[in-house]
């Protein structure tokens, strides 16, 4: 089975695979580059699908199940594509003490999604962060990369709505 030796073919001519391969090469295609390479895939593609996991496994010579095990162990990695907009609610201790649970409840009530879920129209993904390190601004929310500090449910919902409407 010599075909499996050496580096595998890129899954498609999508240029992003070259970036992924560059990371693997930089680490000498060593199995220990697994997490670094998965980071690159996620950065390039937004998520990790089976094709990517298989490619990484073959490139670094890491068993498939180990790749899948690692990809699902680390919460930073996602195996599903995210929605167009993301809203991250910080659930660090300071934010929790100051009402993060109420923010999540407000989102669920309005959009029907829990943390880790995306609305059926793929408009909004809701995530939680363990701590954004902005405890001075608790409770904090990050809507499409912009931090909202000392935020209440209404203010947050208005900002989310603005973010989504902006596209239309």
């Amino acid at each position, binding site marked *: 089975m010599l075909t499996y030796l050496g580096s595998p073919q890129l899954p498609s001519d999508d240029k992003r695979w070259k970036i992924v391969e560059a990371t693997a090469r930089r680490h000498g295609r060593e199995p220990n580059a697994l*997490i670094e390479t998965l980071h690159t895939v996620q950065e390039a593609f937004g998520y990790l699908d089976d094709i990517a996991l298989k490619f990484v496994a073959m490139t670094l010579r*890491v068993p498939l199940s180990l790749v899948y095990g*690692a990809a699902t162990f680390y919460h930073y990695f996602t195996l599903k594509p995210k929605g167009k907009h993301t809203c991250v609610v910080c659930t660090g201790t300071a934010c929790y003490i100051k009402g993060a649970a109420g923010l999540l409840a407000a989102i669920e009530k309005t959009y029907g999604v829990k943390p880790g879920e995306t609305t059926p129209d793929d408009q909004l993904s809701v995530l939680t962060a363990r701590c954004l*390190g902005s405890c001075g601004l608790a409770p904090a929310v990050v809507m499409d990369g912009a931090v909202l500090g000392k935020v209440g449910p209404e203010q947050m919902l208005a900002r989310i709505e603005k973010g989504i409407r902006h596209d239309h």
Partner: protein
Amino acid sequence: MTIEELRKIAETEREAEKRYQHRVCVCTAAGCLSSGGDHVLDAIRKEVAESGMKNEVLVKGVGCMGLCSAGPLVSVETEGKMFANVTPEEAPDVVGSLDTGAGGPQECPTNVPFFERQKKIVLENCGKIDPERIEDYIAHDGYLALVHTIAERSPQEVIQEIIRSGLRGRGGAGYPTGLKWSTVAKTGEQEKFVICNADEGDPGAFMDRAVLESDPHRVLEGMAIAAYAVGAQKGFLYVRAEYPLAVKNLKTAIRQADRLGLLGNSICGSRFSFHVDIRLGAGAFVCGEETALIASIEGKRGTPRPRPPYPAESGLWDSPTLINNVETFANVAPILRNGAAWFAGIGTEKSKGTKVFALAGRVTNTGLIEVPMGITLREVVNEIGGGIPDGKKCKAVQTGGPSGGCIPEKHMDLPVDYESLKSIGSMMGSGGMIVMDETSCMVDVAKYFMEFCMSESCGKCIPCRAGTQQMHGILARITAGEGTPADLALLEELCDLVRNTSLCGLGQGAPTPVLTTMQYFRGEYDAHVAGECPAGVCAGVHRGGEEVAK
């Protein structure tokens, strides 16, 4: 790089700064960044350029100044002034105040306990230097300790100095740093590694992040000195991927230090070589545990393994490995620069030096603080923290994150040191300090931490995997008003089981928030079982007979 060359860089940098009449520093670390610090920096730069003061005013983007709740912060170093809550629109006011001595935006007094009661060693450069310029670090005595050490001291002498300083690990457990170094050094001539644990995962803690973002070279210098002392050639910085600014600044710093020959091959012309690589964490709290962190760097699932053997003997790729956290490494250069006796003169008998805390929660001044060991919690909360807002009363202070405990108000006069905190069931931890007032329900807080431990449990050992789930289930029942006295007994039993039989620190520490709240706030648990949430937090539990809506 020789000592002379280093001094020359420092001198040139200082001269260059002196040419400016005014120095304006704008905080662009994560805390202020999230309230728009970068826009303020741009606006002030633009204003200075437009008013033709480019040669008189130096505008620097700097790291964390500490008082995150008043951000974005701008300090005018030359005049000893600090402005709080600055907006980009206020840039002309800031610049205007320089020449005219006019008031400028809202001033933030610096002669208050928040600043005066602190003692800065680790954070001495934070908020003062531009983290993206190695020259600025060198101008503040940076790399002096490394260059001197390599030129003048033997590895053994370095270790002795660290032992004499009394420095203990700042990651949580407080293991003596010098002892750890000497264990690794003693393993003989073979490949060894130095790892900096920058996987700060405690919710409510951002000390390491601030140091990495504001003063990255300090950590690299500490790592290099450690590598020299233990005989390692290769180092890894394991940083959370959630800290993009820290990663960016570290990458820049490594490149700069490589260029100047302060890292890399034959450092300062000696036989000592040290290469540092960054490895990104990927959102697993358990990777703060040494052996799990090592597994993660090896590209595996971050599950811990039983110790012994300790990483000092068999760590990364089974080689002897020294692991310290960010704050520990950040203390190394000042100790070697100023001497062990200086460091040992600060703090208490068994806990030397200072500790950085992320002060947050129900307290007026939230932010990053550094205090001498031995200061009381009351001083921290009431003086540095400025007390509890809205006329509320302090109920508890939580230290040590998910493995730490809730310290009740009655123990607030306790000195902050490793042993004292342990004696009342909590721990120093990495430095999260969350203040709670009467609006916090302690059972709900315990449930919060248990939820955290349950979802961060790696799943390898049964007590942690299934025990945290059971405890969380019981706490959820109690906070939903369905708890019974038998549940409390079961909870205590599970605490004992999980604490004593779990494989690693995550599981062993997971019961602590429950145990301390049960010990100090038992009344609240009993009240919940009787159908009342005294703080009025828990939905489904009545307060004084009336349903409290969440």
